[in-house]
């Protein structure tokens, strides 16, 4: 079996995987990082979004081997285990940006990518357009949009990528 090595949440990891092992399987089943979810498994719902070298990607549509040598960040990597939440996580909590929570990790990882590309001041239209690749079946998006706007404001400027990596 091919070996793969990458950095996940700042830690060097290696594993033996089949070539067909998806990144999300590697994260969940090999590394037991189950915060990244599989919703649709067809690249549409965004529950599996993680950052690969700082850029949001659907980990159900990437092979683990494509990430050889990459820096991967999952929802578990945003805050220290017992430390304060990341500002974007805190904003989702504050604004009740979730109900069942299934889509939330992907929403938050995508939200950070929106900040990376569009900055800290986000209007509602931009957020809604940019959430095109994330589906929530509970909330009607209203509080998610509010949470992302608030979280973006509370994030340090220009350090988005550091915060996410």
């Amino acid at each position, binding site marked *: 079996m*091919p070996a793969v090595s990458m950095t996940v949440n700042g830690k060097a990891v290696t594993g033996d995987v*089949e*070539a*067909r092992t998806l990144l999300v399987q590697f994260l969940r089943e090999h590394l037991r990082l189950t915060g990244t979810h599989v919703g649709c*498994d*067809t*690249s*549409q719902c*965004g529950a599996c*979004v993680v950052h690969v070298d700082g*850029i*949001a*990607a*659907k980990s159900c*549509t*990437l*092979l683990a*081997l*494509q990430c*050889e040598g990459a820096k991967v960040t999952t929802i578990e990597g945003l805050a220290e285990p017992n430390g304060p939440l990341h500002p974007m996580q805190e904003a989702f909590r504050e604004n009740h940006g979730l109900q069942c929570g299934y889509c939330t990790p992907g929403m938050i990882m*995508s939200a950070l*990518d*929106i900040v990376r*590309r569009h900055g800290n001041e986000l209007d509602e239209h931009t957020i809604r357009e*940019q959430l*095109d*690749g994330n589906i929530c079946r509970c909330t009607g998006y209203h509080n998610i949009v509010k949470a992302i706007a608030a979280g973006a404001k509370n994030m340090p400027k220009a350090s988005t990528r550091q915060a996410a990596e």
Partner: protein
Amino acid sequence: MYNFTFHRPTTVRQAAGLLARNPEAKLLAGGHSLIPVMKQRLAQPSALIDLSLVEGLTGVEQKGRSIVIGAMTRHADAAISPVLQQALPGLAAVPAAVGDPQVRNRGTIGGSVANNDPNADYPAAVLGLGATIITNKRRIAADDFFTGMFSTALEDGEIITKISFSIAKKAAYEKFKHPASGFALVGVFVSKRGADIRVAVTGAGSNGVFRVKSFEEALKKRFAAKSLEGMTIPATGMNSDIHASAEYRAHLVSVLARRALAKATGG
């Protein structure tokens, strides 16, 4: 997904060598068309040859009166390229309209064009600007490249390295986006470069992307939405599925062509 062997060459020559040695191999670009198809077991390549480490396949450059885009340039990067936005904004709008943000972060122009999905966006721009597809072996004119649904003039062992677009004075793309998949239910690219007028349609035809000669003829007098007023195209040869009938797609072709013209002419 069936299993396969995985290769990561660093040069086009190595990639071509791997293709020659693995007749059932597939090239992997962004993987956002190929991996979903493999997950459904609709494709079973013996090997995947990942092009992401191959040098010299990314970037957008202006070369004289042309824009040259490397085959592995991701949609998100092409969409915000200052060179492209300055020289040919109508083309920059195409990668910006693909799928969703995460798909645009991975998908590439070369992958989209080589796959020739009948609902993909880039084929409309490539045909609609009369682009040239440059491979490791030759140059292929867009008019000769797209040969039917999911099929192209690419031969075994041929790898797209870049695509060259002549800068058109007027160019625009309009799509009716399928709300779930992000694909074009119908998309129309229009352009005018001197006497060369093109109207290319994706999403509608059952043979993939095609040109609407009757519209192009009518636009020769005046390149404006008005020139197409009252014009329609027949529904024969249009796709029909759960998302839209052939008649509806034919209707969308003329509506979107007029909208694209209005955009291209600043109207």
